[in-house]
């Protein structure tokens, strides 16, 4: 049975520049890295997703857009099975990541969530130091080697474009950072474990334009190493940040295509009406 990469085997990337690592050795990105196969999802009797079927490419940014209640966040949360925590949910169809079904009985959900990082709408740093926030997951996984932790902290903060701003106060409280810095800290924390996929649920909705610009720049640089799926209500952001865009409406996938195509000449009238602000 195919399995997802064990994080331990990816350890060298923790201490190596992601760009330097990727260039000589990176295999061709898998265009079918995440396969959503005729996937329907129910909250009790309420059906939130209707037979969604598309494929998300590896090491690209895919934006999920659509009006509130269209199912985009539901789908995002199913990529790391966060919705399992809700009573009465069920699904049909399948989601396959890198060849392995997320619903494989042999799959450990905790291990899955280590491989799929998530960043939320509101930054949620732990009430700990900046350093401890970043290395938290590694400490929980039993990593005690100080040198390794230091290297991971530095690399993650560098990757999150935060290192230069915090390197002199790593042991200060994370809660003292600005909103934009806190969100980038959460991204650093999410990538410290070198996940395969980074899920972002409206990561810039609470940020000012400067902080938003930094996070968008970060998303652009992180896709060299990570497969990123982002939910956003900001059409401009989806246009700027993503390579592919999926438009959802009433739990159905209406259109999925290259972002450039979606935002210049979408094939579906509903997509055009939504992105031009005529409904939604």
């Amino acid at each position, binding site marked *: 049975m195919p399995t997802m990469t064990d994080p331990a085997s990816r350890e060298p990337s923790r201490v190596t520049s992601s760009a330097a690592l990727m260039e000589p050795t990176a295999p061709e990105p898998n265009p079918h890295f995440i396969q959503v196969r005729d996937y329907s999802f129910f909250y009790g009797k309420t059906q939130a997703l209707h037979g969604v079927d598309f494929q998300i490419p590896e090491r690209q940014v895919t934006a999920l857009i659509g009006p509130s209640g269209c199912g985009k966040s539901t789908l995002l949360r199913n990529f790391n099975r966060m919705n399992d925590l809700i009573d009465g949910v069920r699904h049909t169809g399948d989601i396959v990541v890198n060849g392995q079904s997320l619903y494989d009985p042999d799959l450990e959900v905790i291990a899955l969530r280590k491989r799929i990082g998530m960043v939320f709408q509101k930054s949620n740093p732990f009430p700990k130091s900046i350093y401890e926030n970043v290395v938290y997951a590694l400490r929980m996984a039993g990593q005690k080697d100080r040198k390794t932790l230091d290297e991971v902290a530095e690399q993650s903060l560098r990757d999150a474009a935060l290192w230069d701003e915090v390197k002199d106060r790593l042991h200060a409280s994370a809660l003292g950072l600005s909103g934009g810095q806190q969100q980038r800290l959460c991204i650093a924390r999410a990538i410290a474990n070198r996940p395969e996929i980074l899920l972002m649920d409206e990561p810039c909705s609470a940020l000012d334009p400067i902080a938003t610009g930094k996070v968008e720049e970060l998303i652009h640089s992180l896709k060299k190493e990570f497969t990123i799926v982002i939910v956003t209500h900001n059409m401009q952001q989806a246009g700027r940040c993503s390579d592919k865009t999926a438009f959802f409406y009433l739990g159905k996938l209406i259109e999925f295509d290259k972002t450039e195509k979606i935002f*210049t000449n979408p094939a579906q009238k509903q997509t055009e009406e939504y992105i031009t602000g*005529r409904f939604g």
Partner: protein
Amino acid sequence: MSQFWEQQLNAIRETLLMMGGLTERNLALAMRALVERDDKLCDTVEAEDTQIDQLEIQVDEMVVSYMATHGPVAKDCRLMLTASKISNNLERIADQATKIARRARELNTEPLLKPLIDIPLMAEIAQEMLRDSITCFVDQNVELAIEIIARDKSVDSINKQTHRELTAQMIEEPGTITRALNLMTIAKAIERVADHCTNIAEEVFYLYKGEDIRHDHTLKGPAPSA
């Protein structure tokens, strides 16, 4: 739908229509000035041109303002691009009308070189192309846009024929050179009008279909046999 931003989009469309109407009228007046040898009409065409110039600036200001404040995408984004290009093409057509009027005024000071047949004929085709290019924009009629493009070759062909005839005339009678050159300039101006109409038709096609058909020579019709 009468949202604020939809009204702004409509204002851009309406300004383009007004510009198209004025340009069409000016071109018709310029041709009447030539055919009827009427200097007053020449003055009118020149005076009206300023208004068309101002409308071009106005369209661009509206487009920049909308783009800066609304970040348009998809068909709205294409409308911004094409509105600016269509207004630019209309302004150039109006410039050609002014050129025709000025040459007509010079021609009016001398006897007619020969009966005007081919030039009014090509002007008629070009005027129809202009009228239809505005119609296809208003009616979202991409089939009509394709038809307009196919007509361009007819105008090119009459222009070439006119040039050949006038060149022969100049060789035969050097005393007609000034008048012949003025007529050649007018024929060339009409040919440019047809080119601008073709450009507008291509922009309309892009606006409504999202496909760029510029420089696709297969769309241009075969040259009519002389």
